[in-house]
């Protein structure tokens, strides 16, 4: 099964609204289970530890699917891959940040951040850009 087929099957399973449950053989560290139980019982973190674990697993899987879908899209269409600065600019616009009106500042920040932190993400760029503007104004 190639990555595309795996992705499609994971998507199908995530979209399946069948609420049937299964007792899984998945093994959890006892301390983690106990911490989750405390968070549910004493902090109201979720309606149950099962709900909490299922939601966390779903969130993680959806993130993996999105990242994999993007990676495969970029492999098929290299020109479609936005730069880090373009992603940061998109997030600035979504955030309603004044930085959205300063693409040059974001591009410069992306360049500076990547030179020091090659694994930086778009939020690192926005933080850097905001800091640079704060010290220059």
């Amino acid at each position, binding site marked *: 099964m190639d990555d595309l087929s795996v992705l499609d099957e994971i*998507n199908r399973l995530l979209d399946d609204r069948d609420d049937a449950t299964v007792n899984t053989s998945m093994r959890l560290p006892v301390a983690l289970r106990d911490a989750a139980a405390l968070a549910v019982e004493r902090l109201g973190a979720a309606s149950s530890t099962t709900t909490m674990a299922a939601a966390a697993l779903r969130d993680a899987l959806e*993130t993996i699917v*999105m990242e994999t*879908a*993007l990676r495969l899209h970029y492999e*098929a269409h290299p*020109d479609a891959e*936005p730069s880090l600065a373009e992603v940061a600019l*998109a997030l600035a616009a979504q955030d309603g940040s004044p930085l959205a009106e300063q693409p040059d500042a974001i591009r410069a920040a992306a360049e500076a951040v990547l030179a020091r932190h090659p694994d930086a993400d778009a*939020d690192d760029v926005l933080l850097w850009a905001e800091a640079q503007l704060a010290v220059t104004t």
Partner: protein
Amino acid sequence: MRTVVLDNEAVQALTRVAHPKHRVVVAHLAGAASRRRRGRITETVVPTSVRVEAGWDRSQPGAAALNRFRVRDHVLDGPTADVAASVVAVGAVTSVADAHVGATVRAVASGDIVVLSSDPRDMAAVCSPTPVTIVAI
């Protein structure tokens, strides 16, 4: 949680790799994935009427790549149609798809709503009074 709602041109840009705004819309999806990696959940939603207008048929083989991005449908069911009709009735728009965007932003549970659109003025009209961030693409 943030909800990003796609309008017609955002969908068309996403659907077609050669579209001049393809990278821009992909950057928004990449930003959502990046935020998810940081634990900030962002979902992307498309009103089904917008899909109709943009010609996005999920069952077609050509839509397979787009289907992998986990863009959730917001369905035009009976209650949603009532809300959309009320948007049309106040004269905000005459387009079913635009009115459905207005109904969608009223329905999503997220307190942080972003609309990606090539027509910010119409989107502002259909979304009012729901607070949204409209990002022009």
